[in-house]
């Protein structure tokens, strides 16, 4: 092992580096905040580095890293609970600096809806819908049966659909004509 250490280590470093952007996007999706997500990412890097030996070269490093990160996220949660949302360091706040106002607004609505989901559902839909994992891989990362993972994804979709279509109705949806005709709005 000692003889190959230099090469193995730089392979490991290179592979880890290649996964950082998606790993960080996952962290931000989980936390909803950049500062917290970056702390989580730092811990993940340190843990991954000091546990290199437990990673089998040739296996799925991405899944291995995601598992470390989400386990860390949940143990942090157990220790200090989820932080109250505020605008500083919030991903939704940072999105507003995008040049395309309309797109940014849409994305902010989406980010809010995503954040409102229960952690396990948010995690499931992000892993499958954005990080590029199969249901089986995602279930393995989360340490749950595939059926459970699928049902979390479905509930996440339903939850997002509900929130996003409600928001749409309030602005310019079919209810607009209804409101104009004197029907009270169903939400404020």
């Amino acid at each position, binding site marked *: 092992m*000692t003889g190959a*250490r*230099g090469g193995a*280590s*730089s392979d490991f*470093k290179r592979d*880890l*580096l290649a996964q*950082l*952007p*998606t790993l*960080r*996007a996952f962290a*931000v*999706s989980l936390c909803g905040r950049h500062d917290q997500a*970056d702390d989580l*990412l*730092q811990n993940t*890097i*340190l843990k991954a*580095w*000091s546990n*290199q030996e437990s990673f089998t070269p040739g296996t799925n490093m991405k899944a291995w890293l995601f598992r470390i990160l989400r386990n860390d996220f949940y143990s942090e949660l157990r220790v200090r609970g989820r932080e109250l949302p505020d605008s500083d360091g919030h*991903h939704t706040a940072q*999105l507003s600096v*995008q040049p395309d106002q309309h*797109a940014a607004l*849409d*994305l902010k609505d*989406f*980010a809010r809806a*995503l954040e409102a989901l229960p952690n396990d559902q948010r995690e499931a*839909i*992000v892993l499958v*819908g*954005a*990080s590029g994992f199969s249901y089986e891989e995602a279930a393995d990362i989360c340490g749950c049966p595939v059926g459970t993972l699928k049902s979390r994804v479905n509930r996440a*979709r339903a939850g*997002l*659909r509900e929130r*996003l*279509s409600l928001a749409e109705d309030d602005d310019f*949806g*079919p*209810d607009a*004509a*209804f409101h*104009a*005709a*004197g*029907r009270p709005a169903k939400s404020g």
Partner: protein
Amino acid sequence: MTDIDGADAMACHKGLGVSSMNGSKKTEGRPPDPQMTSGFFQKAQETITQKLREYYDSVEDEGIPDRFLDLLEKLDEAEKKAGKDTGKNAGEAGGK
């Protein structure tokens, strides 16, 4: 009754064939159009998929902050210096 009729008329006038999406109460005589409903559902699903990717990509596109690249450099250097004792030096390098 009059109010609802009025609203219905207005919706029709505006060409908003949307009654089926808001339930059948105000469609009076017209059954909800299942194709419309499932099309709406389909579209909502696609929007969610697309927005989720867009959201995720927006973070990925930010790139990796320097602190992480520095951290990896330090870890790597510490490991090379220490020879084999990875864990201890890695901890020191990261705990800035």
